[in-house]
């Protein structure tokens, strides 16, 4: 018997906000911290925590710098992050398909 697709879901990626972060980053080369915060309706602290988890798992790169006197943080998805997102989406699709087949 094949393993249940739920087993394919990665705990680091699967969290809803983190999936959203990876989905946005997958569409750009670099995304601003403020854009992610606005788009996902997260607080600064909440977004920072999610980014730290993703960065520690090597799924994203965070670049902190300044533009003039204003601090600005850019976030970039890594190759591993792209793979993890694709794998997660595939696992979710498999789960949906499997349930539809058993109906």
């Amino acid at each position: 018997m094949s393993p249940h697709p739920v087993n394919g879901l990665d705990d680091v990626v699967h969290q809803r906000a983190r999936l959203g972060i990876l989905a946005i980053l997958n569409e750009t080369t670099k995304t601003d911290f403020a854009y992610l915060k606005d788009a996902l309706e997260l607080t600064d602290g909440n977004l920072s925590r999610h980014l730290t988890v993703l960065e520690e798992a090597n799924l994203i790169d965070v670049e902190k710098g300044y533009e003039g006197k204003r601090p600005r943080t850019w976030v970039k998805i890594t190759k591993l992050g792209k793979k993890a997102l694709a794998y997660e989406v595939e696992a979710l699709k498999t789960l949906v398909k499997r349930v539809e087949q058993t109906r």
Partner: protein
Amino acid sequence: MDSARAEQILDSLEEISRETRRARHGYWFPLLLSGLIVLGDLPFSYFRLGHYGGSFNSFHGLCLCAVDSNHPFGSTLYWLLAVPLGYAAIAAYYFIRGRRTGLKARIWPYVVTGIALFALMILTATQVPKPLRFMYRLDNWRYYAHFNQGFMPVVVISLALFVLAKLERSKMLLFISLVNFAVAVLANTYNISNVGQRIHWIWPDWAANLAAAGGFLVFVGLLSLLVLGLGGGRHEPAPR
């Protein structure tokens, strides 16, 4: 996790990806600028700028065409300056837009392709010494020889747009690029003024061809601007 929840997450992801792509799209600018660059050749051709008297046919500048044609030198110089400067302006626009919207996207493959194709096109021109001329051996290739209107920069611009469509991941831009390519080929191979004559709208051949190619790009550029907006405005969060 149940399938309804999984389906909901997949829908949300699709929605948020689509929203991001839409917020990132800035292709109205290259379309509009390219169109204006094409139309910008009209006065150079009309006033024959850079044509130093004598028989018009006896003096060509570096005609940007595959077979001998009668294009004024000023027009050639215009293309040689306008196309690279246009690509530089597009690169600058995307850079500034990326900083303003907080969404940076790759643009250099489009710019490099456009400039490389333009350089390749110069090497096909009839006035380039034969050893350097890229298409010399293919001069008799009958399909290529039909490109005798001297508007090869229009084809170069249209080909590079396919790269932009891929970078922007936009099916709409891909469709626009396909139609634009057809218009560009038509402008290089057919006297579009023939169509105008049927409705008693008499234009010189070159003017009708330039106006059709440039006018189409300006039209779709303005239409895209209306649909996409200038960008950099407040982003509407995707429903969650």
